[in-house]
C-alpha cells in the first residue's frame, strides 16, 4: 500500500524532509506498527520517534490514536504536541 507521509515542526526537522511517499509492508497494521517500521529506516527516523508515544498522528487530516489501523489512509501525518493558540 502506497501512502503519503507528512511531518511537521521538530519531527520534520529531525527527519529532514516535509513529506514522502512510502510503500507499506503488509505487516504494518496500526500507527504503532508504522512508527516502529519508520524507526528502522534510519537514524533520522529513530531520532524523530525516540519518544514514540509522545508523537501525535493524523490520518487524512483528523487526529487518531496510535492503535488506529492505517489501512485505507491516503495521508498520514506525524507531529509534536501542538503549541498554537
Amino acid at each position, binding site marked *: 500500500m502506497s501512502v503519503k507521509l507528512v511531518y511537521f515542526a521538530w519531527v520534520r526537522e529531525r527527519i529532514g524532509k516535509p513529506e514522502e511517499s512510502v510503500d507499506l509492508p503488509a505487516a504494518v497494521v496500526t500507527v504503532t506498527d508504522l512508527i516502529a517500521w519508520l524507526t528502522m529506516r534510519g537514524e533520522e527516523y529513530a531520532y524523530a520517534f525516540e519518544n514514540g508515544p509522545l508523537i501525535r498522528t493524523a490520518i487524512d487530516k*483528523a487526529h487518531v490514536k496510535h492503535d488506529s489501523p492505517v489501512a485505507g489512509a491516503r495521508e498520514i*501525518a506525524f507531529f509534536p504536541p501542538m503549541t*498554537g*493558540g
Partner: protein
Amino acid sequence: MFAVHVQTEDFDIAAEQKKLCARRLDIGAVVTFTGLCRDEQGTLTALELEHYPGMAEEEMGRVLDDARGRWPLDGAVLIHRFGKIAPGENIVLVVTASRHRTAAFAAAEFLMDYLKTRAPFWKKEHRKDGSRGGWVEAKDADDQALEKWSGRP
C-alpha cells in the same frame, strides 16, 4: 455567521465583531479572545508559527461544531495566524455571540482550550542573539484545562 480562517495577515477584532452582529437584534453578548505574542525577557525577534494546511481549518471547524453542540451560539469566528509574528502582535482570535453572556463566555473559553490542544500549529522562537531558537514545548496546563469541560455544561 460561523467562520474559520487560517491566515498570515493580522485581524481586526472590531470588524469581525461587526460582521457577526450585522443586521441582527437577537445577540445580547459578544466575547472576544485575542492571544498575543509575548516577550517578557526582550529576547525574541519573532515567533514562527508552522501549521498543517488543510487539517488546521478542518480541526478548527470540528472544535467549532463541538462548541455549537454545547451552547446556543448565534455566531462565532476563529482566526489563527501563521508565519512570523513579532512580539506584541496578534496570534489568534476567537469571537462568540449569543443571546446571553454565560454561553458566550463559556464557548469562547472552550474554543481556546481546544484550539490550544487540537489545532495543528507549532511555535518556534527566533532569538535576537541569533542563537538557535527552540520549538515551544506543549504545557501540561493546557491539557489539564480540557478537564473542566468533561461532563459540562
